């Protein structure tokens, strides 16, 4: 603070003077400070010293630094600039070296397209689904999900694809981008995951409380068959179905019924046989027989 005599209170603090010296003040405060220092020689000198120190720093460091001389520095700068120009989220990002985790994560989707949907071990699917969610940034407690119980068997059913799902003909956007906002989930990432024989689309959604939900589906249409399986594993609900020539899988930190509701946004008519569904999580009730619902849509076998 400005030295004062007796009990007088200084009109301007040193910090205010520094802000003034740096030009950080609004015009009104600036005029007020100028009014004060115009009548106070000590304050005026103090401001000048502040300015002088600042200019001395600029002069000293600026003269020592010069410009970077190594061409590598500018080459790195160019590389950064190229990366900044590259389109990121909102478009379709192609991930080629996705590795073993990503490969297992979408095994269901690819396998469904290739027609060997039924040959995949349910436990593998479940493990792949959990890995998928972990890969996509799900909270750590998901890793503790038990995978010992077999997932539901895949059974043939019929489906009525819901054309209300958002579609886009633009090359940069996936064909199906369902809107889960009414469930509190917003799309945060879109990826094209490359496979050996086919690609899969991965849509990652995030809820307000940090919950994650992933939807995978095969990039191209294959054999037109309908299969569905749903189960709850601790905090995770997993839903796999095949409809309209595509394989779909949804894994999310939601309850099974909510996941089914969300899936109906993508494929109309998915339902669970409530007569054999006791709603418990991780239970051992016998598998429910699949049947057609009244709308002729998919009816899932529930492994509650």
């Amino acid at each position, binding site marked *: 603070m400005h030295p004062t005599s007796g009990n007088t209170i200084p009109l301007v603090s*040193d*910090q205010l003077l*520094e802000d*003034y*010296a*740096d*030009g*950080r003040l609004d015009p009104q405060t600036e005029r007020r400070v*100028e009014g004060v*220092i*115009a009548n106070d*020689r000590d304050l*005026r*000198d103090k*401001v*000048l*010293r*502040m*300015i*002088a*120190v*600042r*200019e*001395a*720093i*600029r*002069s*000293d*460091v*600026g*003269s*020592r*630094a*010069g*410009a*970077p*001389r*190594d061409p*590598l*520095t*500018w080459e*790195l*700068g160019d*590389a*950064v*600039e190229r*990366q*900044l*120009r*590259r389109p*990121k*989220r909102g478009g379709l*990002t192609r991930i080629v070296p996705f590795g073993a985790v990503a490969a297992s994560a979408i095994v269901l989707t690819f396998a469904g397209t290739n027609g060997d949907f039924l040959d995949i071990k349910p436990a593998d699917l479940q493990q792949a689904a959990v890995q998928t969610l972990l890969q996509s940034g799900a909270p750590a407690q998901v890793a503790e999900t038990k995978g010992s119980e077999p997932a539901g068997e895949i059974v043939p059913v019929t489906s009525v694809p819901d054309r209300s799902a958002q579609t886009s003909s633009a090359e940069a956007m996936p064909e199906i981008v369902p809107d889960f906002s009414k469930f509190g989930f917003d799309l945060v990432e879109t990826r094209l995951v490359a496979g050996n024989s086919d690609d899969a689309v991965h849509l990652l959604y995030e809820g307000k409380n940090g919950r994650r939900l992933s939807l995978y589906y095969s990039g191209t249409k294959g054999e037109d068959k309908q299969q569905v399986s749903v189960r709850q594993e601790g905090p995770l609900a997993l839903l796999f179905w095949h409809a309209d020539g595509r394989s779909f899988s949804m894994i999310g930190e939601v309850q099974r019924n909510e996941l089914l509701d969300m899936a109906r946004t993508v494929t109309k008519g998915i339902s669970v046989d409530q007569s054999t569904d006791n709603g418990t999580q991780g239970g051992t009730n016998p598998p429910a027989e699949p049947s057609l619902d009244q709308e002729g849509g998919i009816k899932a076998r529930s492994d509650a």
Partner: protein
Amino acid sequence: MNRQHEQHDLQAHIRSLHRFATGLTGNPVDAEDLVQECLRRVLAHLKGDNSVSNLRAYLFRTLRNVHIDQCRKVKTRGYEVNADDGVEFLSVPPSQEDRLRCMDISSALDSLPDSQREVILLSCLEGMTYEDVAEVTGNPIGTVRSRLHRGRAALREMLDPAQYDHEPVHGSNSVTMLRKA
């Protein structure tokens, strides 16, 4: 700041980074190594499909982190100095008065704690706002302001007013002219 504007400014950012790094290390050659490592890290971050909202602040924050990492390494491993370089450096006499004055300012800056020196460099040298300095250093704005104030006060104490380029001039108009220079 939009992305296009950032691209235009990238070369200016690199010069600013180099200046800031020189202030941190006291040596333009070490500063350039610091800038290169910083750019490598930023490149790796961007290649990971990550986005950057405030490029300037992100660049400076990364450079600061690289500097901190290198300081930690030096503390554990010690300095590596080429003997020939050392002899050459020692054999160059300070020949000008300006150089002497700069050395004094450099010494004064070097004598400050790192936490004060970095905010002074970001604020006084690079003209950053308090908000940006807070983002770069990861400190609240109040902390930034108090460190800046203490650092500047210490510099004013250390530096002899007679060495300043701008001798105290009496009159508010003179102050205004210097302030906006």
